[in-house]
């Protein structure tokens, strides 16, 4: 039965109080551990299509008569369009339509960053569209630009009001502490750089807009377009069956989709608007830079008594100020905490969510500071973390927390440190470091799924969610197969089309599996119940005696047993239709994910080169649905995190705000040659309070602790405290120099 509840909804660490219509979730969870299909390795259902190059991405959509759009972008960090004249552009061959400022959402009159689009052209080819963009006569009124986030804070230029948090009495606790440490940490702007750039193909069929969009949220894009175009949501069909990565940057429609939709309307033809790689590096969103001034107070036994943090998020021209102080508030038991977070509005490209926004940055600062405290007090890093273990989330109980079990899994990797350090020779110093992780990832309602079972016994799951590459399609198939008692290859999943299936949530915030998975299980259970009812009537047995196992429907006493595919032959053209909904999250509980990573590094103290040699990860995300896919997620998160730790950095000119790193030779992402040995382990205990599945999300947790774990391993190897990401050779050598001075003052250092 549907019911209405008032609840807190979380996406990417942002909370809002909402009314939600939810359905009950009466199924009991499966026991912990591997089941017949769930909790085991499963290769991807769509693996062959993707590997063979048959999967059709938005980039591959070519419609008859399709035009190509290009956008005119501001060369100035802050400027108003004083005059714009399309006459010369319109005379060029192949040009079909132009849009000026205000004619599509996202085309602005006042550009607030260098690269913001103000106009667009549709032409027969992309080359013709780009030539036309260059032929637009435009005059700019250049306005004052603020590029420095600290200046923005001084001038109180914010994207939102400063967020202040306090518990206990930090001032008194710092005064009473045995030791107080302070540090300033900086993180850089990093870019998602999904392999498929942001793009959309739009066509109008009658009064319906078909939009093929590379997106993490087909329903979000549908609603964005419907609102902007003033048409009903069901007159917009958004399709994204395969997409080439998003990492948080593709949660909405964005200007390229609006531009394609409006130009398609104007021209009566399909229009593709795709960002080039250079545009992707400028205007497609980023993980914003941060400045973190942190302070910790502790007793000599390592008990943390006070924490304080001032965080500046250099948000950019737009975007939101993510919860950078989250780890400081949530990771450890500490009664006295004070934080303030400023979202600096500056004239640089906009922030967009990027894989655990805020917590990646905040964990770097906090977990480095924790280990600096450990060094000062000569306390073991793992012991220090155990000593400050939090038993509740600031008074709210956890739905489940197995961080201590993660620590136990990490022990054997931490125990390698003497052997690792002993490998140091000449200028190469080896060391081991760790960092913990806390994050959301519980998902929530609403999300829905349907199941369809035909006379051949095959099961089709229909749900309008997306698989952005994480393998959620396979996880959903596993859940349906498990519930129905059939082999995995009897199940297909139809997804990625807002007109063909019920609502499912966005693929962000580590939420797809914990949100849609329980709905899929409920839909499979609904179909299973109907099959059992039919079998009970057909064979004149009690429903309770009928089971389906490994594709065979039977009774325990052997009255009958036949393959489901044969039994369901009696359906002929009839079909069994099941439906399922995601139930509510547990009331009054914090649903969170946890983990720890232990990293081994080698540092050349002469050149500042850092090599990550081994990463061991132990995460607690409830029940693991696909053990193979889960290991892939952990590896992928760690590798992406090694990128922002060691080599990735978007640079801009501090005077003009123009982006200097627009190509993939300048913006350096990890290659196969940069990858360390990675060991991934899971606690794999269902969260008994969370849904019929007990699973949380895993997309984001693995990227959270890696930077701090690397920095802490560097300290272990060299005695140097790195305080800035990425840890370039320049930063490494600076930290080594500082460590030498620290040594002269009497503190231990290896250099």
């Amino acid at each position, binding site marked *: 039965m549907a019911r209405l509840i008032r609840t807190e909804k979380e996406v990417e660490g942002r909370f809002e109080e909402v009314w939600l219509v939810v359905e009950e979730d009466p199924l009991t969870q499966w026991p912990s551990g591997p089941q017949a299909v769930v909790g085991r390795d499963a*290769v*991807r259902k*769509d*693996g*062959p*299509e*993707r*590997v*063979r*190059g*048959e*999967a*059709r*991405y938005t*980039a*591959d959509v*070519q419609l008859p008569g399709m035009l190509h759009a290009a956008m005119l972008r501001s060369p100035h960090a802050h400027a108003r369009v004083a005059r714009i004249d399309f006459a010369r552009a319109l005379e060029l061959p192949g040009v079909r339509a132009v849009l000026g400022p205000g004619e599509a959402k996202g085309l602005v009159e006042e550009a607030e960053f260098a690269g913001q689009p103000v106009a667009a052209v549709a032409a027969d080819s992309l080359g013709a569209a780009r030539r036309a963009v260059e032929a637009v006569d435009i005059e700019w009124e250049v306005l004052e630009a603020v590029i420095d986030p600290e200046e923005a804070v001084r001038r109180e230029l914010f994207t939102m009001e400063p967020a202040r948090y306090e518990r206990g009495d930090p001032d008194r606790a710092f005064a009473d502490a045995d030791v107080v440490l302070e540090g300033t940490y900086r993180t850089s702007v990093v870019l*998602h*750089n*999904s*392999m*498929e*750039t942001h793009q959309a193909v739009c066509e109008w069929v009658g009064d319906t807009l078909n939009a093929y969009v590379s997106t993490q949220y087909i329903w979000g894009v549908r609603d964005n377009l419907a609102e902007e175009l003033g048409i009903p949501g069901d007159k917009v069909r958004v399709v994204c069956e*395969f*997409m*080439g*990565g998003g*990492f948080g940057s593709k949660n909405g429609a964005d200007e390229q989709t609006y531009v394609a939709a409006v130009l398609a309307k104007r021209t009566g033809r399909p229009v593709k608007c795709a960002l*080039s*790689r250079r545009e992707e590096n400028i205007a497609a969103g980023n993980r914003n830079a941060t400045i973190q001034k942190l302070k910790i107070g502790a007793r000599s036994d390592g008990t943390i008594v006070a924490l304080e943090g001032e965080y500046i998020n250099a948000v950019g021209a737009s975007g939101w100020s993510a919860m950078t102080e989250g780890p400081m508030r949530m990771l450890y038991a500490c009664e006295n905490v004070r934080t303030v977070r400023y979202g600096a509005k500056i004239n640089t490209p906009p922030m967009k969510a990027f894989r655990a926004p805020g917590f990646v940055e905040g964990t770097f600062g906090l977990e480095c500071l924790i280990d600096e405290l450990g060094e000062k007090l000569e306390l073991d890093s793992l012991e220090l973390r155990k000593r400050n273990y939090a038993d509740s989330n600031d008074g709210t109980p956890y739905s489940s927390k197995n961080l201590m079990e993660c620590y136990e899994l990490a022990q054997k990797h931490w125990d390698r440190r003497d052997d690792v350090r002993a490998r140091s020779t000449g200028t190469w110093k080896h060391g081991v470091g760790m960092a913990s992780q806390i994050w959301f990832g519980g998902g929530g309602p609403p999300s829905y799924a349907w199941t369809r079972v035909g006379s051949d016994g095959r099961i089709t799951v229909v749900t309008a969610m997306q698989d*952005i*590459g*994480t*393998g959620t399609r396979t996880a959903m198939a596993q859940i349906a197969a498990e519930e129905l008692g059939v082999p995995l290859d009897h199940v297909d999943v139809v997804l990625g089309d807002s007109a063909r299936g019920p609502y499912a949530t966005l693929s962000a915030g580590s939420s797809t599996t914990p949100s849609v998975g329980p709905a899929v299980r409920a839909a499979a259970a609904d179909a299973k119940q109907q099959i059992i009812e039919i079998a009970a009537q057909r064979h004149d047995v009690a429903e309770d005696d009928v089971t389906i196992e490994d594709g065979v429907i039977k009774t325990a006493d052997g009255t009958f047993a036949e393959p489901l595919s044969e039994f369901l032959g009696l359906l002929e053209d009839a079909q069994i239709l099941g439906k399922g909904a995601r139930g509510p999250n547990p009331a009054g509980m914090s649903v969170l994910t946890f983990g720890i990573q232990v990293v081994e590094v080698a540092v050349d103290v002469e050149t500042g080169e850092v090599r990550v040699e081994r990463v061991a990860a132990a995460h607690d995300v409830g029940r693991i649905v696909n053990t*193979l*896919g889960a*290991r*892939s997620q952990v*590896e*992928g*998160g*760690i*590798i*992406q995190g090694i990128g922002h730790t060691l080599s990735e950095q978007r640079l801009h000119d501090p005077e003009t705000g123009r982006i200097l790193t627009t*190509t*993939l*030779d300048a913006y350096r*992402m*990890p*290659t*196969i*040659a940069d*990858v360390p040995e*990675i060991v991934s382990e899971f606690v794999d205990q269902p969260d008994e309070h969370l849904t019929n599945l007990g699973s949380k999300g895993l997309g984001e947790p693995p990227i959270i602790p890696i930077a701090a774990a690397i920095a802490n391993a560097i300290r272990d190897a060299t005695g140097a405290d790195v305080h800035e990401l990425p840890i370039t050779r320049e930063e490494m050598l600076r930290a080594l120099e500082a460590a030498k001075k620290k040594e002269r003052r009497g503190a231990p250092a290896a250099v």
Partner: protein
Amino acid sequence: MPELRLTINGEAHTVDAPIGISLAQLLRETLGFTGTKIACNEGHCGACTVQVDGVPTLSCITLAHTVDADVTTIEGLRDHPLINAFVRADAVQCGFCTPGQVVSAAALVADNPSPTVEEIRHRMAGNICRCGTYPRIEEAILHWRD
């Protein structure tokens, strides 16, 4: 438009194409071989890799009219044992770089059917995977004949 003769996956193609068109664009837009992906379009990422006479070649920075040799795209490698090796090893997440990875890997194992980890890392370093499937790619290539 000047005529262009190409052998692609063993089949002869004659097409009219403007001078200056890249091999990647010709394959994808003119001939419909969309398995070849374009991700950077300036030779930095490897997603567009095809083989020209067996040599991994970045088709996005190769002018189509300069190619006078046999071109092999992912469509010509669909029965290669590497396909199953990639699927088995889970060497695919979003999959956008994957066809290019397979094309590079196929050239590698043709040259050396038993490459070492170091050789794999050297030969595959030009193919970027943003999802980070590298450990799986390494595993797939190490065990491609299993």
